[in-house]
């Protein structure tokens, strides 16, 4: 059973084998409104934790999606190009953005767990 981890910028990440799947949370998609476009990186692109990995656009806003962990982009969710609405419909599942080959699994430890993220939203947002 894979566990989700969360960032303060409302990204989630979970391990699937040796890849880390990254997306944005339900809270994030509800704040953005209808997603109209997703700009994904190229396969092979390297990201450092906290740097921009993708961009998600709604009609009224465009937001950076930051890499929760460092690694190399191994897969991107091409389905989002044809149907960006998946991010709204299933942000934690089919609305995933990228899969990273992790540099350092220990980077996950400093992220919030599900309970911690729930509290974070209640308190901060």
């Amino acid at each position, binding site marked *: 059973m894979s566990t989700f981890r969360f960032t303060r910028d409302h990204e989630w990440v979970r391990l699937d084998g040796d890849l880390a799947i990254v997306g944005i949370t339900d809270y994030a998609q509800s704040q953005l*409104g*209808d997603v*109209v*476009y997703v700009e994904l990186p190229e396969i092979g692109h390297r990201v450092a934790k906290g740097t921009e990995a993708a961009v998600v*656009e*709604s*009609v009224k806003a465009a937001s950076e999606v930051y890499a929760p962990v460092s690694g190399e982009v191994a897969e991107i969710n091409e389905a989002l190009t044809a149907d*960006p*609405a998946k991010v709204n419909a299933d942000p934690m599942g089919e609305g995933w953005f990228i899969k990273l080959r992790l540099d350092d699994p220990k980077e996950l430890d400093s992220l919030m767990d599900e309970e911690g993220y729930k509290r974070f939203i209640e308190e901060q947002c």
Partner: protein
Amino acid sequence: MSARPVEDRTADGPVLPLETITGNRALQIEEKLIFEQGSPGRCGVDLVDPPPFQARLGGLERQGAIGLPGLSEPQVVRHFTRLSQKNYAIDSGLYPLGSCTMKHNPRLNEKLARLPGLADIHPLQPVSTIPGALALIDTLVHWLKTLTGMPAIAMSPGAGAHGELCGIMSIRAALEARGDRRRRVLVPESAHGTNPATAAACGYDVDPVSGNLEGRVDVGALKAKLDTDVAALMLTNPNTCGLFENEIIEIAAAVHAAGAFFYCDGANFNAIVGRVRPADLGIDCMHLNLHKTFSTPHGGGGPGSGPVALAASLSAYAPLPWLVHGPEGLELVEHKSGNAQQAIGRLKGFHGQMGMFVRALAYMMSHGADGLRQVAEDAVLNANYLRVRLESDLSLSFPGPCMHEVLFDDRFLKETGITTLDFAKAVIDEGYHPMTMYFPLVVHGALLIEPTETESKASLDQFAVTLKALAAEARSGGAARFHAAPRWTPRRRLDETAAARKPVLRWDPEPVRQTKE
């Protein structure tokens, strides 16, 4: 969104359809695209046949049809007349758009801009054949220098955002000339989006400065960020909350002490024209919007004109061309030579938006020194009048007097289920263009209202009464009309999500287009 009712029950029974046969509603007439109406071979312009001649196009004649529709003059006139009737305009009614200064566009300006001696002259005619054009620009420069107190005006930028670019480029050039590489530009959080976009475009890192509880820049926070790595502060004054930055002289001093430049976004100049000169506030560089303060028409989105007032420390870097007083009269300096060696270069083709210069000068001369001062006073008076008429119905974001625009936020809509957007759409049904929404970003659900000085008291009273009634209805549970709004416009709320997901940006006769790879 609730559906439009399909039936209209009359008092004594018979039901009348709410849809007409044509889909028109009396003067509101549906109109197809020109491509859906044209016929090949039809033409709305009679041109003679060229005499027989030997073409010299190098064998590169265009092959195949372009696909343009053919229409007669009556069809074209009717088409665009019908389109115009679907538009709101200043000529139709009040536009309470904050920071846009939607004032009346005088028709004298249009008449004078069309004089053959001004409209039918080419920018590259020998200067000896257009001394009057240079004299007109020079006169406008004189008026702008006097109103701003600044010694130089760069006339070529094509609009406000272009003027901002000009200003930041000049600042960067000045810093480079003194061997000083700085990497940051400070921009208040309340700034218009063009400000950070301009700074970023010129290679600067944008460092936001927070506001204080009085709706102005937090001077302490600003001073803490001012170091030798800051190239400039970009400030709007009066600011985007409609308030005068009362500590501006102290701010200017701090900026200069750090060796940085003070850029002012002049979008709100209408509040202070003739009463305050930006030079006296310590400003080094300020763009003006001729299409805001100086009445040139918005034209559905353009053209504008964004001349930039420059302090002596920046004038050497002004973009080409320069208009200078030479030994034999006015001259155009079009190359980086002599005094203009350090000019940042050209920002636009030719000399600037001459058509807008004529209109702005006619406006300025019509008002004069006394009239322009009256403009600022009436603009500020009108905004404050609306403030006191509305402050108990809408939620005023910052207590106390405002300048030429007044800022409200959506606290008054709390727990009504109605958003600022819904409220604005209901304003449309009442015959008004909505106020500026969701800007500035420093308050939630912003509603920024700028009436301008060309609204009568009666017009303001009617607007206030309407907003008060809408606010009352919002709070008493009448959410349905807001969610369904607008109901009476040629089109109801449009699906912007679909437009952005699957963009359709042109008409096509067929679904698939062939293009050369």
